[in-house]
């Protein structure tokens, strides 16, 4: 009585009484941060299936805010961990709550130590310029791209980049091969001038082979924090004798393009490391910190139109201390107007335009320098994307935590453990099936016992037989003996020898039974 009344009370007070339609649940779930979604996967089977639905994946991706994925530089046993930091809440809550740790073997391949870039929640990793991995660290699955070289020649340097073609819904990896070529040699001064020649190959995930693009007009030198917009990856071209400044590679048409630069911008081109291109508020942006005490942030409001460049923000205070030695990359403009900046790729500062002050943000558990890239967490599954490639799913081994963090993280970890243990459980079951211990229910066996011909159901032998049926081996034995006489003989033998385990068949044969 009391047992029933408690849940009823709770239900009346707290629950939404009727079930919401799936579409609404999708709308709600797609607005949740990744950590809460991990918990929501556990709520019910229905929710779990909703979260892995491709429709949800797209909806979530369109709303998922950009996060920071960073890799600490310190060396210890955890140094291969990646940290995913939720930037929306970083300045509001305890830094520990705002981050999610991603482990090698479970979330991404162990060998993929260098982060290349990310696109739509997929992460491109590489190992010593030779192996390229594409993985989704949230789901923990990854593929290895086939090894490639250009015409079998050793190249000076290679640069990779992952991108997405929205029209064809394909993910592609472009690989630049750079070769240093002697341009001129002055015999008197022995002065040599070199220029870089670049060739490229492209790989479409799902097709399984590298295609040659040939010589390319521009080549990627270094990745910006986040410069993928309108289906194209953007970078700045500092090559001499080239008038083009902002270049991009369109992953849809596989063409290189030039994007117009801000009108009054020509002066700063010589400062290589003091200009960054990026994406802010869904616009292409340029951050110029070439003058020592000032940072200009430009936004291109209408993509591709030169006149739409506007100076969004000028920061003049508070940068004196570290001065022009720093590189500043604006990451995100928060709703309050504050700007999060990645400084030197190793610190996060929050700039408040109203007070004109910088504030250093702490990232829990990272004391050393780190390298950070923009990452949009998503549930885009390589299962749906990759067809020709062999998909590897996240490792099963999960260490038991010695200490438990509070709150959501603990639950998220618990959920991971649970799912992993379920996975292993299922695996064990399939193994059992292969070996052959098929499950025979007690009911079937007892029914068979009572239906035996040539023996009365009230016989004590039957009672004894029933008492044996709690063991799976006996049940299987009973079901595998084809004739009734055989079963009775087996039961008698079993009773005489007190249920001896050894070589029952031999025992039966010694009693002159054949079956």
């Amino acid at each position, binding site marked *: 009585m009391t047992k029933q009344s408690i849940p009823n009370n709770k*239900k009346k007070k707290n629950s*939404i009484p009727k079930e919401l339609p799936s579409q*609404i649940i999708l709308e*709600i779930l797609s607005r949740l941060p990744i950590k809460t979604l991990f918990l929501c996967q556990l709520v019910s089977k229905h929710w779990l299936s909703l979260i892995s639905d491709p429709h949800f994946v797209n909806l979530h991706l369109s709303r998922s805010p950009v996060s920071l994925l960073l890799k600490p530089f310190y060396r210890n046993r955890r140094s291969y961990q990646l940290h995913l930091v939720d930037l929306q809440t970083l300045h509001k809550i305890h830094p520990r709550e705002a981050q999610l740790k991603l482990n090698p073997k479970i979330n991404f391949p162990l060998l993929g130590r260098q982060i290349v870039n990310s696109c739509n929640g997929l992460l491109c990793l590489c190992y010593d310029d030779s192996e390229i991995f594409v993985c989704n660290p949230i789901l923990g699955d990854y593929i290895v791209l086939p090894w490639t070289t250009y015409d079998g020649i050793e190249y000076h340097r290679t640069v990779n980049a992952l991108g997405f073609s929205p029209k064809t819904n394909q993910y592609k990896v472009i690989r630049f091969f750079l070769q240093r070529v002697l341009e001129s040699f002055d015999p008197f001064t022995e002065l040599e001038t070199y220029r870089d020649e670049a060739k490229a190959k492209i790989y479409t995930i799902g097709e399984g082979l590298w295609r040659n693009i040939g010589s390319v007009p521009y080549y990627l030198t270094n990745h910006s924090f986040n410069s993928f917009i309108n289906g194209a990856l953007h970078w700045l071209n500092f090559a001499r004798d080239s008038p083009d400044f902002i270049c991009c590679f369109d992953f849809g048409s596989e063409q290189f393009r030039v994007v117009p630069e801000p009108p009054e911008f020509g002066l700063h081109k010589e400062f290589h490391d003091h200009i960054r291109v990026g994406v802010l508020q869904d616009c292409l942006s340029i951050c110029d910190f070439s003058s020592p005490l000032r940072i200009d942030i430009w936004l291109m409001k209408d993509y591709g139109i030169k006149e739409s460049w506007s100076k969004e923000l000028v920061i003049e205070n508070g940068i004196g201390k570290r001065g022009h030695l720093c590189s500043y990359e604006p990451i995100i403009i928060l709703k309050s107007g504050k700007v999060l900046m990645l400084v030197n790729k190793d610190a996060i500062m929050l700039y408040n335009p109203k007070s004109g002050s910088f504030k250093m943000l702490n990232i829990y558990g990272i004391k050393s320098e780190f390298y950070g890239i923009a990452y949009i967490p998503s549930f885009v599954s390589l299962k749906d994307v990759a067809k020709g490639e062999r998909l590897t799913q996240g490792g099963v081994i999960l260490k038991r935590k010695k200490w438990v963090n509070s709150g959501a993280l603990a639950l998220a970890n618990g959920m991971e453990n649970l799912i992993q243990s379920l996975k292993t459980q299922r695996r064990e079951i399939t193994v059992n099936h292969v070996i052959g211990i098929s499950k025979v229910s007690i009911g079937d066996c007892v029914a068979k016992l009572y239906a035996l011909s040539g023996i009365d159901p009230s016989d004590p032998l039957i009672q004894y037989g029933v008492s044996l049926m709690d063991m799976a081996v006996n049940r299987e034995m009973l079901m595998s003996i084809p004739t009734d006489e055989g079963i009775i003989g087996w039961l008698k033998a079993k009773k005489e020898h007190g249920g001896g385990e050894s070589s029952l068949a031999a025992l039966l044969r010694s009693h002159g039974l054949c079956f």
Partner: protein
Amino acid sequence: MSSSLEKNMLILRSSDGEEFIVPEVVAVMSKAIKNMVEDECASNTIPVPNVDANILAMVIEFCKKHDESEAEAASDLKTFDSEFVNRGQEALYDLITAANFRDVKELLDALCQNVAEMIKGKSVHHIRIQFLGYQLFEILTSNFIWNIWCDRDFD
């Protein structure tokens, strides 16, 4: 009745028979009503089944505010939204159903955002209580434990 109304006014009738006189601009924020008006399949009185007077009044209040304040600052509207959706669960559920059924995108967005904020930081147990009801939760757990139990080898 209809002749006394101005041309750009519509009457919405809730499921329990109450009538609301609303400017057409406000009413067509609901896509379902907009379609009806465009197809001219509605006379001046539009029945809104499944939505009672209480909830309909709330929806109209929301639409009016959004219609008026289109020119106003967006931040102002945001504070209104967050206050508007801050209601009890019952009302919230009814509002969501109404917004979904009548296809009022802005309201649905605000409501879903609010529910999402409610979920954030909650445990699985709490989410289950809130969205599935306690009893269903019990069934799920018992099923879950039963499955593990059954999959064990008893020897």
